[in-house]
Each structure stands twice: as structure tokens, then as C-alpha cells.
């Protein structure tokens, strides 16, 4: 899929695709000038945006290496006097942070297979079958994205109470095994619709039932989309504060996102604030996600692309 992307103003496009050769108006040297000029502009804009994103990130790192007095001082220190690597150790010794991260991971590992399985099943239903009332259900599916969470939240909480599921991970994981989020279903449905039906039909001729078709034919072709779903699910769960905050009471069962909060609230209780530890904890939490994203980036983008989100 060799595609030439649209370029920023000032840069003429020269197609590389074998079937088209474009002759631009103007001489070749001015083309090169314009191209270089355009490149410089692009880099400038990229750098400017990059700074906007990077500076607060750098600040997070820097503040995670300061002492609490430095961090709380009225005049902010951009760099710590002496990097307090000890902060990172303290994050693990003062609270069961490693355990908390493990808990976050547990939830992720339960949710990802759940979403992949049940969202696919749901998407498959919508993509491949013409059952009675299909459109109605589809609209209802989409409408779940529109209703603010706070409408269902209180009764959901009461429901889990009565089932004695509070302080367990069930409220945080059951949704992913019951179809996952509407957005994921939508994404997967679009993706499945780009897979030619001929493949299905070939399998039917071979005597396969729809379930077989799903697992042997369709899903292997869905890799990029499934990876995308996995990544999105991971991100949603890893940083989720609200769910664990409401449903988990025991400190040892906290996830890292909620646990991070204790650094803030503990500052209210004891005399020494712990903002520096909060920053260190945030940095620690972000690292695995970064690695994941760096590795899976290709799949992530292509997964979204191939789902044909051209709507």
C-alpha cells in the first residue's frame, strides 16, 4: 500500500507510485528549494508541538527527582539540586506499589481476552448476519456511548452491593466479558465488514458452521484490529481511577492508578507532603505503557486504518 500522504503547505508532491508520474510546474531547483523550505517548516511545526508536549513530561521527571521541599518551594526549581533517585525506591517501600501494579496488570489480563472474545462475537453478529431487529439493536449499542456514565453508576453500585461483589475485581472486569465497550464493537464490526464474504462462503462450502468460520477464517485476518482493541483496553484499564476507587476498599487490592492518589491524600494527613512521590509513581506507571506502545505502534495505527474508519 504505497501511498503518498498529503504534505504540508509549500511542499510539492512527487508521486512514487509506479503508475503515475507527475510533472510539476516550475523548474527542478525551485522545486527542491520549496521542498526543503517545506521540510524546514514541517520540522519547525513538529518541534514546536513537540516542545508543548515534552516540557510538562520533562517536568514530571524532574519533579519526581526533587525533594518535597524543593517541589513545594514557592519558586519552582526546574532541575533538582541533587537527583533523589531514592524517591523511586520510596514509592515501593512506603506503599505496596509493586503489588498495586500487579493488580492493575491482573485486571488488564482479565479484560483483554474478554473484550477480544465478546466484542468480536458481537461485531460478528452485526457484520455478518441479518437478523430480525438488527438495526434497532445497533442503534441501541451506539446509544450506550451517549448516556453519561453517571446515570447508570449509582444503581450499578447498588447491584454489585447486593450481589456482594464489592471489594472484588468483578465489577471492574465483568463488562469486558459481556461485549466490551460499544466503541470496540463498532471498530471490529467495521473491520469485519472489510473482509470479503467469499471467504466465508468458501468455508461454508467446506461444511463449516458460523462459529468455525469466525475462529478459523475471520479472526486470523483480524490481527491488527484485535491488537488495536487490546491496546485500547490496556490503556483504559491501566489508568482507570474511578472504577477501582469506588469498588475497592482494601488497600492491598488497589490498582496503581488509585494507589497514586494515596500520595496526594497522605499529604493531607501527615506533615511531609508527597508530591514528589506522586510524580515518581506516575513515571513508574507510564513506563510499561510506553514500552507497549513503542512496540505495538505499527499494529495500532494499521489496525485503525484497516478497519476502514472512513465510515
Amino acid at each position, binding site marked *: 500500500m504505497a501511498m*503518498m*500522504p*498529503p*504534505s*504540508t*503547505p509549500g511542499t*510539492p*508532491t512527487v*508521486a512514487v*507510485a509506479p503508475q503515475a508520474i*507527475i510533472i510539476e510546474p516550475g523548474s527542478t531547483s525551485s522545486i527542491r528549494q520549496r521542498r526543503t523550505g517545506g521540510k524546514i517548516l514541517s520540522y519547525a*511545526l*513538529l518541534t514546536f*508541538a513537540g516542545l*508543548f*508536549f*515534552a516540557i510538562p513530561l520533562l*517536568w*514530571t521527571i524532574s519533579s519526581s527527582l526533587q525533594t518535597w521541599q524543593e*517541589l513545594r518551594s*514557592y*519558586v*519552582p526549581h526546574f532541575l533538582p539540586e541533587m537527583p533523589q533517585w531514592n524517591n523511586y525506591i520510596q514509592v515501593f517501600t512506603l506503599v505496596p506499589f509493586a503489588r498495586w501494579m500487579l493488580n492493575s496488570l491482573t485486571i488488564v489480563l482479565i479484560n483483554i481476552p474478554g473484550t477480544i472474545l*465478546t466484542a468480536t462475537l*458481537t461485531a460478528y*453478529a452485526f457484520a455478518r*448476519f*441479518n437478523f*430480525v431487529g438488527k438495526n434497532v*439493536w445497533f442503534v*441501541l449499542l451506539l446509544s450506550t456511548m*451517549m*448516556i*453519561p456514565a*453517571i*446515570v*447508570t*453508576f*449509582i*444503581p450499578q453500585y*447498588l447491584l454489585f452491593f447486593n450481589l456482594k461483589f464489592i471489594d472484588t475485581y468483578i465489577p471492574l472486569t*465483568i*463488562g469486558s466479558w*459481556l461485549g466490551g465497550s460499544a*466503541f470496540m464493537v463498532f471498530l471490529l464490526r467495521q473491520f469485519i*465488514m472489510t473482509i470479503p464474504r467469499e471467504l466465508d462462503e468458501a468455508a461454508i462450502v467446506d461444511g463449516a458452521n458460523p462459529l468455525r468460520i*469466525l475462529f478459523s477464517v475471520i479472526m486470523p485476518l483480524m490481527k491488527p484490529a484485535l491488537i488495536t482493541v487490546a491496546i485500547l483496553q490496556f490503556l483504559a484499564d491501566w489508568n482507570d481511577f474511578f472504577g477501582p476507587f469506588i469498588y475497592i476498599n482494601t488497600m492491598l487490592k488497589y490498582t496503581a492508578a488509585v494507589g497514586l492518589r494515596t500520595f496526594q491524600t497522605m499529604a493531607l494527613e501527615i506533615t511531609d507532603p508527597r508530591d514528589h512521590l506522586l*510524580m515518581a509513581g*506516575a513515571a513508574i*506507571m*507510564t513506563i510499561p505503557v*510506553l514500552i507497549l*506502545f*513503542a512496540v505495538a505502534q505499527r499494529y*495500532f*495505527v494499521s489496525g*485503525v486504518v484497516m478497519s476502514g*474508519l*472512513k*465510515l
Partner: protein
Amino acid sequence: MANATTSLKVVSGRRRMSPAQRRQNLYGYLFLTPWLIGFFGLFIGPGLYSFYLSFTKYDVISAPIFVATRNYVDMFTKDDLFWSSLARTGYYAIVSVPLSVFGSMFLAILLNSKLRGITIFRTLFFMPSLVPLVASVILFKILLNSDFGLVNAGLRGLGIQDPPGWFADSRWSIPSLILVRLWGSLGGTQMIIFLAGLQGIPTELYDAASIDGAGAWQRTRHVTIPLLTPTIFFNTVLGVIGALQTFAAAFIATEGGPNFSTWFFALHIWKQAFDYFNMGYAAALAWFFALVIVALTLVQMRLSRRMVFYMGE
């Protein structure tokens, strides 16, 4: 695009369902089962219960007391913060959504070029969306401290005598929140979706435009953007839904202040429910809110018919 529906027409003189159709129904619903359980158990069920609660006075500790439509009437007549919260939320959405959508679109266009090192930039842009919200809000509170935060120190260095009060000033608190939001989301999933949309634009169209003598900017205007309108629409709809429900950042950063300037509607519901324990009233507010969001979404979908261009139509 959506498959054509075969709706069964029941004509007089009953028509029996063909076995093929029956099979479609069977398998369709079979595969739909997990979602159906979730939909009714976690969505419809609680939704109905909260609808019932909206007609009661309920404080969690004692049983709900039926008060008929009093909550709904009070909302419009007795609640001082009702209209202002709505207005504030609207203002926030109107400003932040276009900035966010077009900002991430612009970044996606930038990132779509084949410049060297572009992957580094892409990763960098994406990183803020990975930082937990708590951390990024506190981060910005420190950076934007009105007396001695880094930003204002810089502004004063540039000669601006009276830099904005940011979170401490009721005129700047919403812009501050928008800033935090943009930082955390411009390079995030929305941008990735735009990237995907961009890569889905066939090169032939650009080639054709170039042959016609179109410069880069004109190509962007006449090819890229029109073909991105479905993606823009998609991101806008979700963006509006998200922006209207904004809560966490305001809660963490300013708790609705200063002087109610960041008291958004979702925060208002939260306060009524969990600080003042007026659960019934909060449920009524939530339902009203749901109606507003649904209405707005439908309006957007209406508008999209005229403004969104789908390829292959």
C-alpha cells in the same frame, strides 16, 4: 457501510420465515448473547432503576421516599447552579471540541509526512495521553501557579506585567482546564484515528489534483479535508459527548472553583449525589443530562448529512 437490511414484511396472509432467515436469526442472536446480557444487566436494568430513583428522595442510608416529579421541578426552579452549570459546560464543549478535533487533525497531517524521525515525534505526541490524569492535573497546577509557576515566570520574563491567574482566576480556570485536556489528548487516540483516515485517502485523488495544477494547500483544502469529514464527524460526535461529561479534571484541579467557575454539570451531579447525598435529585439531573446529550448527538447526525462526504456514495 452498513449492510442492507432485510426487514421482514408481514403481509396479510402470514408468511413463513424461510429456513435461511431463521438461521440468520438464530446465529445472529446467539453471537449477540454476551452483549445482550451486559446490555440489560449493566445498562437497561440500572438505567431503569435510576429512572425510578429520580422520582424519589434517597440518601443511600434509608429507603427511597417517593416524591413524584418534585426533583424535576426543583431542578428548573430552585437550583441556583443548574442553569449556570449547563452554560459553563456548554462553553467548555464549544471551545474545547473544535480545538481538540482540528488540533489533532492538524497534527495528524503533520505526522503523516515521510520526514525522517517522524516516528519519534509520533511517540512523543502520544506520550501525554498515557500519563494518568491525576498526575497531569497536578503537574499543570504547579506549572500554572499564578505567582511563581514556570509559565508565568516565563511570561513575566517576556515583559507581560500581569500574567493570567490560571487556575486561581475565575476567568482563566476553564481555559486552564482546556489546556490540560489538550495536552493530554491532542496526540492521543483521536489523532491516531485521523492518521488512519488520512492513510485511507487514495493517492489517485492527489495525483489528479496535482495534474490540475493544485498546490499543496489547495490539495489539502479540496481533497484532504473533504475526505476527512467522516473522521472529523466521528471525532466530533465523540468529542462532544466526552466534553459535556467533563468531570475528573475539574474535580481534581479546582473542585468546581474558583467561585464556581469550573462547576460543570457532571460535577454538579456528583456533588448532589456524593457530597450532599441527594441521590434521587442527582438521578433526575443525570436523566435530564442524558436527554440533552442524545438530542445534541441527533442534531449532529442530522447536520452530518449535509456536511459529511462519504467516498463511494
